[in-house]
Structures are given as structure tokens and as C-alpha cells.
């Protein structure tokens, strides 16, 4: 692993305090959500009503913002702002607001498509035309900041193409090996590179983009693996080929069910994989020189530990149950 000074990473500085940066991102997200609703209403009544209902179907207002920004969620909207604080452009709030607004739209487009692809979509299939709206805002806001011949657009296109390629490949997989995970399923957050590239180009900090983008992707892979881990039973039942579902098929004994495998060794194995990746993320984070990122990892580590601790009690009960029933 390369040492921080070898990557050109900046030394860890307090920068903007974590609490302050969190409050700013919260305000930017709140404004971004209001802007999204206003632009949807302007675009068309059906879009505003139907897509607005989808957007708020699990939460609305502060609860929705908490779902986007809370410690359980991938910090999609935080990462570019944290990057900006290390480059000294966090006070450029008009630009930060556009970055957040773009990211909200990009996220909605990806989520809409993913839900349809996963078969989880209830209303999403009929809402697919809204992807055009989300995409136009995701890309369009950056035209205010980068002329059409600006090198930012090469990074934008490369990241967005990569996201499409990875999503397509992921949807076509029938089995997910460790290599498949690192090359495909674990790279589903690759579009997070877009707002990071925007910040880098805006601040003239392109030399730092690589380490930030690599961290964003590795953190995304961790979230994906955690999802696969805690959802292994749901995915297996619905025949969704994830890394853990495939591992259960490949590692279980011939006489053993997936549930028995998970209770016997799968849970411990998965926990260790995720802990190892968290440790690797901490090493990567050192290159970023950002206290907020370190704090983010602290929170994720605590939350993961709490959930695993609770799960461990359940697994102990499951092992007893299997002993009694088998």
C-alpha cells in the first residue's frame, strides 16, 4: 500500500469541522430536494405527481434526507463536499449546490433503473421515462460550470459509461465469484466519480482525484458487500446472484442447505471479509487527509459492529435450532 506522501495526498488537517460540514451538506441536500420537486412540477404534472410519490414512498421531508445522509447510507452527497474541503473550495456554495443537485438526480436515475432490473420495482417500470428527466439534470447542471470542450466532460463520460457497463454486466451474471465482485458487482458506485471529478476540475486538484475516486469506489464495494451479507437469505430466495449467494452454493457441503452453511461458517466468513475491507478502507483514507472521512469510517465501523453483534445472537439461536431440528 502506498504511503500518503507518495500519492501527493495532503496531510490530515482539521479543515472544516465534521459537524459543520455535515450541516452544510444537509442544507445543500434539503435545497436540492426542493429544487428537484420544483423542476419536476415545472416539467409536467404527471412527472411531479407520480415520480414525486415514488421519491417519497418510503420517507419524506427530513426522514428522506436522513435516509440519504444518515450514517447507514453511502455518503454520496458528502464525499464531493469533503473532497472540496481538502481543496479549499467548500465555500463556493453555488457550485456545491449544483454538485449535490446533480448527484441527487444521478442517484434517482440509477435507483429507478436498478429497481426495475432487480425485479423489486412495483411502479418503477411505468416510471422509467423519468430517467430522461433525472439524466438531463444530472448532466445539465455541470454545463453552467464547464464549457463543452472542458476536460471535465471526458471524465464525466468515462465514469458514466463505466457505470452503464458495470450495471449491464451485473444484471447478466448468474454467479458472482470474488473476481466478479471486484470487477463488476463491487463497482456499482463507480458513478460517484462524476461529482468528485467536478470538484477536482473546479479546484484544479486533478492530482488528488485518483485517490478520492478509488476510495469512493472501495467504500461503495464495502456497502455492496454488506448489503449482500445481510440480505443473503432474501437474495437466495429470489434467485438474485450475489457474492454471498454464490459463495453459499460453492462452499456448502453436499448435504447442507444454504441456511446451514451460513450458520456453520458463512456468517463468520462474511464478517471477517467485511472487517478486512473496513481495515483496508482506513489505510486508503489516510491518503485523503480528511477528518470527516475518518469520522465517517468510525461511524460505519460502530454501526457495523452493532449490527453484527445483534446478528451473532441470532446466529447462535439459529445454530441451536439447526441442532434440534436437523
Amino acid at each position, binding site marked *: 500500500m502506498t504511503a500518503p506522501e507518495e500519492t501527493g495526498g495532503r496531510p490530515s488537517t482539521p479543515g472544516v469541522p465534521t459537524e459543520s460540514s455535515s450541516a452544510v451538506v444537509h442544507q445543500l441536500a434539503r435545497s436540492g430536494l426542493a429544487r428537484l420537486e420544483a423542476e419536476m412540477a415545472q416539467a409536467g404534472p404527471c412527472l411531479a405527481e407520480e415520480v414525486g410519490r*415514488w*421519491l417519497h414512498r*418510503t*420517507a419524506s421531508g427530513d426522514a*428522506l434526507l436522513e*435516509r*440519504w445522509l*444518515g450514517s*447507514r*447510507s*453511502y455518503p*454520496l452527497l458528502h464525499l464531493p463536499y469533503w473532497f472540496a474541503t481538502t481543496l479549499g473550495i467548500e465555500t463556493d456554495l453555488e457550485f456545491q449546490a449544483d454538485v449535490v443537485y446533480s448527484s441527487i438526480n444521478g*442517484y*434517482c436515475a440509477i*435507483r429507478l433503473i436498478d*429497481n426495475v432490473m432487480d425485479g*423489486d420495482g412495483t411502479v418503477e417500470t411505468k416510471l422509467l421515462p423519468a430517467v430522461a428527466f433525472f439524466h438531463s439534470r444530472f448532466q445539465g447542471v455541470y454545463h453552467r460550470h464547464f464549457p463543452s470542450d472542458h476536460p471535465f466532460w471526458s471524465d464525466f463520460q468515462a465514469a458514466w459509461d463505466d457505470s452503464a457497463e458495470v450495471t449491464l454486466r451485473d444484471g447478466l451474471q448468474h454467479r458472482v465469484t470474488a473476481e466478479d465482485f471486484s470487477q463488476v458487482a463491487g463497482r456499482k*458506485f463507480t458513478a460517484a466519480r462524476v461529482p468528485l471529478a467536478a470538484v477536482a476540475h473546479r479546484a484544479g486538484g486533478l492530482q488528488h482525484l485518483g485517490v478520492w475516486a478509488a476510495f469512493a469506489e472501495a467504500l461503495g464495494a464495502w*456497502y*455492496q458487500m*454488506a*448489503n449482500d451479507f*445481510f*440480505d*443473503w*437469505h432474501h437474495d437466495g*430466495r429470489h434467485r438474485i446472484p450475489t457474492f454471498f449467494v454464490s459463495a453459499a452454493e460453492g462452499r456448502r457441503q453436499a448435504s*447442507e*442447505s*444454504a*441456511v*446451514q452453511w451460513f450458520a456453520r461458517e458463512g456468517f463468520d466468513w462474511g464478517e471477517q471479509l467485511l472487517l478486512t475491507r473496513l481495515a483496508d478502507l482506513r489505510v486508503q483514507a489516510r491518503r485523503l487527509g480528511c477528518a470527516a472521512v475518518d469520522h465517517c469510517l468510525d461511524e460505519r465501523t460502530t454501526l457495523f459492529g452493532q*449490527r*453484527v453483534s*445483534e*446478528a451473532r*445472537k*441470532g*446466529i*447462535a*439461536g*439459529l445454530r*441451536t*435450532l*439447526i441442532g*434440534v*431440528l*436437523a
Partner: protein
Amino acid sequence: MSAKDLETVFLKLLHDEKFRLKLKTHPEEALKDAGVHVDPARLQAIANLPHEQLKHLASAFGHTVSSGGIN
């Protein structure tokens, strides 16, 4: 018990609170309702299962770690 029956019991424990409670108080009836046959000699052992621990299965594996909010 077959792998399929074990899967059924596991999923019921995750998603059906009433089943979990009934498994403790009336294990034979709970399993029969679920379509699972079990050796009567094991019913007492099932009633004596660590039900508090089993409750944690649902809270740990019953929902998703959010990747962003609109799942």
C-alpha cells in the same frame, strides 16, 4: 427435517413474529401451520429453544443496509 423445511422455519422466524411466539408456546401447532413435520420427541427441545436469540435473527437480517435511501 429436510433442507426445505429448515428454510421454511428460518424464513418464518425472520418474517413472522406470530410464528416465532407460537413456536415457543405451541411448537407443534406452529410447525403444522407452517407445513413442517417434526418428530414429536423434539417438541420439548423446540419449546426450550433460545427464543430471545431467535428474535435477533429478524432484526439483523430482516432489513437492508441502505445504500442511499430509495430502496
